[in-house]
């Protein structure tokens, strides 16, 4: 009897508002400034917060922001815990096999290598990158020794404490760090990786993808996207 009551309670849970289905849950990492981070008020902030809010306003969607670990950000999208990934995720063929992407809202973003000495031979260096990023894939490709970390902050901390020779990440993330820390400097030139950053959406969710595609296009057309890029990602090329 008790289990029956519990089952009924579960089924009845939330029957009231079953109609208002236009809430879209936006999944982000919240640890990758300036793309997305938790500001000092404990709120999600950054380029993608501003962009996402604007996209939702244009598509007339109610959006709710959630944070999720980078490691499990794709699995939790496909199992339906949230509806989009908007977390500085570059469009790559490997990811595209698992999820779908909207059109990119940044140009292919320059990545840079940051270390303590300028004359570093990258091919034989030990380089830190965040797990499951295109930069981690790149390090493996050039034959350097890759050390992976779960969060972006840890990759930089590893350079500072000498655990690795250098870190590779998006330039927009590294730029303020290099500017404010005299010990850190760029090694070599910028590297262009990936096909730009897009929103990740479930493959079965074609309608939502089209909605966001249209919203991104309208921001590209009237120049508001370029304003946001200039504000948050000064190193990136505009559209």
């Amino acid at each position: 009897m008790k289990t029956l009551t519990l089952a009924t309670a579960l089924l009845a849970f939330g029957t009231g508002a079953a109609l208002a289905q236009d809430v879209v849950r936006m999944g982000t990492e919240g640890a990758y400034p300036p793309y997305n981070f938790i500001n000092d008020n404990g709120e999600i902030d950054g380029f993608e917060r501003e962009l996402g809010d604007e996209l939702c306003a244009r598509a007339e969607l109610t959006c709710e922001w959630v944070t999720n670990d980078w490691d499990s950000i794709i699995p939790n999208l496909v199992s339906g815990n949230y509806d989009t990934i908007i977390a500085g995720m570059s469009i790559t063929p490997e990811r595209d096999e698992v999820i779908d992407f909207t059109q990119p809202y940044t140009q292919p973003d320059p990545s840079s290598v940051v270390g303590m000495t300028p004359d570093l031979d990258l091919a034989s260096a030990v380089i830190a990158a965040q797990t499951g990023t295109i930069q981690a894939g790149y390090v493996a490709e050039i034959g350097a020794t890759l050390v992976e970390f779960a969060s972006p902050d840890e990759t930089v901390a590893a350079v500072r404490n000498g655990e690795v020779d250098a870190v590779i990440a998006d330039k927009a993330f590294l730029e303020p760090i290099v500017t404010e820390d005299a010990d850190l400097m760029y090694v070599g030139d910028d590297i262009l990786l990936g096909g730009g950053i897009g929103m990740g959406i479930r493959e079965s969710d074609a309608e939502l993808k089209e909605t966001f595609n249209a919203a991104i296009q309208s921001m590209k057309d009237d120049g508001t996207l370029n304003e946001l890029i200039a504000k948050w990602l000064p190193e990136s090329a505009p559209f």
Partner: protein
Amino acid sequence: MFSFCTDPALLDDLPWMACYLTTGKHMAFYASFGTVLLLLAITAPVALLFGFLGAMATRSQIAPLRWLGRGYTSMVRGIPDIAFFLFVPIALDQGLEWLRHKVRCPDWELPVRQGNDFVVCDIAKLPLSNAPQWVHEGYGFGTAVLAFAVVFGAFAANVIHGAMTAVPRAQMETAEAYGMTRRQAFWRILVPQMWIFALPGLSNLWQILVKATPLLFLLGVEDIVYWARELGGSKTSTFTYPHPDWRLYYFLFLLVFYLALTQVSEIAFGRLARRLSRGQATAAGDALRKAAA
């Protein structure tokens, strides 16, 4: 928080620190201590209940129930905690959504699993995607509590089962001689007396449970470890309060917190053991009797 916090860049060290430690983010950090304590407060009794039921099942005279009890304890005890913590909430969530999907959307024609995607109809989602954020967080917390309770319940079942067999046989024989049924003897004689034998094992489990709470972070609940890592990481001037890598201090603080928590529980368990020893045919019970005389 304070009125002088409007421009932190101009502040001296001490007021800066005061402002820094009272930001909204720090408030979330302090609140997460409540989350951890709440988890403990809910999980411990639920796990104890699971353990008690498991132990009862294991000594049941009905064979299938006995198999169930044994299966539960040996299976859960044999699987790494982390694997179990990752499996239970996902399986539970998808299982419930699938059930609701079957009941509420019988006309749905598309398969639930489409390639990588797990898709149920909108009104079968748990919680609904338009539910407020606290419902989502509460739901995540609930599945986490259940995962903890299932795992720690299995260990508790073993401890309690051991304690039940440790109650002197003579006690049960006396109960039978008084004409009590098996059930009466179990509830009136065995259960009240077994706690003192179960206590050392249970207090061990409690300490392990306290130390296992950082696993919450793994389940996506924003607990103290999440916030310590988030707050401690070095911050550039994109943030209002830039600072270098302070993770060491934050984790040191967590270390002190956990040590204090386990120390307090140690004292509480000491008192409880003294209380439960009263009148028992154990060395501790004997010592109490002699002290009173």
